[in-house]
């Protein structure tokens, strides 16, 4: 299983639902809470997201080298299926 990373905001409804999606499937993930770190770390995180093709709209999800922006269960399933192959 490739690494799952969820970039999130603590205030974001769709970030919570994204985490729930992976929790319900018992898929471990690393959560990066953008709004819970200092400015310098936020800049580093935003650079990381932009390099992967994202922007400031959360959640941003990485499954291995596949990425998705926004809560999209169908896309998450596709990303997980790709990783199984």
């Amino acid at each position, binding site marked *: 299983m490739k690494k799952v990373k969820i970039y999130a*905001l603590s*205030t*974001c*409804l*769709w*970030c919570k639902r994204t985490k729930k999606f992976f929790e319900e499937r018992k898929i471990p993930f690393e959560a990066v809470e*953008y*709004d819970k770190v200092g*400015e310098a770390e*936020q*800049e580093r995180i*935003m650079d990381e997201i932009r390099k992967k*093709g*994202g*922007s*400031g*709209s*959360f*959640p941003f999800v990485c499954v291995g080298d596949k990425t*998705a*922006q*926004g*809560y*999209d269960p169908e896309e998450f399933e596709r990303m997980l299926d790709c990783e199984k192959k």
Partner: protein
Amino acid sequence: MIRFDKESRKKALRSLFEPVADKLGYKFHPDSGDVDFLLGAEADLESELGMPYCPCQARTKNREENMKIVCPCIPFHREHYDAMKRCWCGLFVHKDVEDASRLKQIPPDKFRRKG
């Protein structure tokens, strides 16, 4: 930090936003639970930062960019939100939407390709 009674502030934000969203062609999402959560998050952000920022978009050091995500941020993202028939966080949906549960978040870089 500005201290508000959260429930009162949620009601106030709802009253402030409703006529603005209406003029922009939008209405509150029909799911009252989601609306309550999102208004609560905005009330917290307003209390902490002075503005009811979108709870699902990141603020940076760029104040001009941050102002584009103060709720209701529909005018600054008009094309994108009209394409999704909802705003990014889902507090508002387009007035002609009957089944809001089917609306998806379309990443900002993808909706342009659909047009």
